[in-house]
């Protein structure tokens, strides 16, 4: 029975949270189409949305394959960020001294200009998927680290006392108290990281991928633009955003399913 009610409320949640943006999206497309007709915007500047969809409809293969390729790469980068970011957060918040010694350097990850180091990544990891995954990782790991640390640090002191009172080991304190308490913050970090991983992937692809049949969206946008296929370029950009949205949405769903019974941020959404 519980899975049934979980499914039910998940469907409700999808309905409530997916319907409004869909309506907005359709309205914006109609306005876009109309204003190109009314203001006679030249085709080489902005294509009509109908042309973009037609391009996607008639020649979807390269675009979909590119989206899939970019999606896999972004997911790998994001996965690295999630695992390494949470682990780094745990290590950094385990002692004040470790934090003082290493935290300033993690800030580099936040400030390093990806465009500047992407060529270096290619030198280090060779052209292909590897440097792109690393680029996605570099731009997306910092928010995971910071949010994990915030979460681990804001545990109710009375609960820490309770665990001490019953002689809990540091490990059970970590897994039974600090990590679960940090989950809402960790999800916040992951949400931000999901979008960043897609951006990092596409920027990485501009520098580091082949224009072969597995070319990612970054590669495709570049070649469509060179050839003046603006409708295809727009379709590629749209698919990239959709990819980010899909990843963001999956994290939201995971967060909702995990937290809905106990955390204020996910309550009152469905039920």
């Amino acid at each position: 029975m519980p899975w049934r009610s979980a499914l039910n409320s998940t469907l409700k949640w999808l309905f409530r949270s997916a319907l409004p943006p869909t309506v907005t999206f359709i309205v914006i497309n109609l306005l876009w189409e109309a204003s190109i007709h009314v203001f006679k915007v030249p085709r080489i500047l902005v294509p009509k949305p109908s042309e973009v969809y037609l391009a996607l409809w008639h020649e979807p293969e390269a675009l979909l394959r590119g989206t899939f390729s970019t999606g896999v790469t972004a997911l790998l980068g994001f996965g690295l960020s999630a695992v390494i970011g949470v682990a780094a957060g745990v290590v950094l918040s385990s002692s004040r001294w470790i934090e003082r010694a290493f935290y300033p350097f993690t800030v580099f990850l936040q400030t390093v200009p990806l465009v500047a180091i992407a060529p270096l990544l290619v030198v280090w990891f060779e052209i292909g998927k590897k440097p792109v995954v690393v680029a996605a990782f570099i731009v997306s790991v910092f928010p995971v680290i910071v949010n994990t640390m915030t979460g681990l640090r804001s545990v109710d002191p009375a609960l820490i006392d309770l665990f001490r009172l019953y002689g809990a080991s540091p490990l059970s304190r970590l897994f039974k108290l600090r990590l679960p308490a940090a989950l809402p913050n960790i999800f916040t970090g992951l949400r931000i990281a999901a979008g960043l991983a897609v951006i990092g992937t596409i920027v990485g692809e501009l520098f580091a991928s082949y224009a072969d049949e597995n070319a990612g969206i970054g590669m495709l946008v570049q070649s469509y633009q060179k050839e003046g296929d603006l409708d295809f370029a727009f379709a590629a950009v749209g698919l990239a955003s959709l990819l980010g949205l899909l990843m963001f949405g999956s994290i939201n769903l995971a967060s909702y399913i995990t937290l809905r019974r106990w955390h204020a941020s996910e309550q009152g959404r469905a039920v």
Partner: protein
Amino acid sequence: MVASMPNASTTSQPAQGVAVTVRGASRVFEGGVAALKDVDIAIPAGQFVAILGPSGCGKSTLLRLVAGLDRPQAGTVQVEDPRDADNAKRRGPIRDDIAYVFQDAHLLPWRNVLRNVALPLELKGVDRATRLAAAREAIETVGLTDAATRYPAQLSGGMRMRVSLARALVTRPRILLLDEPFAALDELTRQRLDEQLYGLWRRGGMTVLFVTHSLSEAAFLGQRAVVFSKRPARVAADIMIDLPLDRPADLRTERHFNELVLQLHRTLEREGG
């Protein structure tokens, strides 16, 4: 019916409280706030002690010292098994047998009632079947059997406090420290919980330190009321509550009860509460 099952096992055991001895204890916090100064209290095993005192005087600080969560700068705090005095001295405070109920429930929000109540046993390494059985029993004791699978966010404040009480009872503590546990509840709920707690103490025989701001609660529950002075806390008055051991709900309307409440009131007023 509610509380009859678990009692069978508790009543069969002898009184099992531990003695608490605080000698010359002082605690000064960083920044120079002196919370306790030269506090002396001797609590025999199995006594129910109500602790009163002005807000911010150092009552919670005292409980934390007794629980071993904090240390005094001067003096000693000893928790000893009277039946086993030598052994107790050798191994120091009996941390294993202490339970603490905070002013707020402080439950783990991601665990349901049953798993919250089982937590202390889980942390002590008790196996799953045993700890869940003990948790069910403790939940029944506080009358929450129907709510065992609910999450803290789905409970009322009073229910949450009862879960917190069940969590404290699940280890069969020999000393129970309660820090204004029912302060946030309405008067009737509080009185019901007081009566329940009193019944548990009568059957379990543990030592109880009960901090409260309510004079009638102190008189209803305590065998003894210790009144603290303003900060830094000293023992300003130590009053024996000479009411019978059987304390039915309507004791609160009796004359002697109200005289005791008045006496506590005067003492507290004199101490600037």
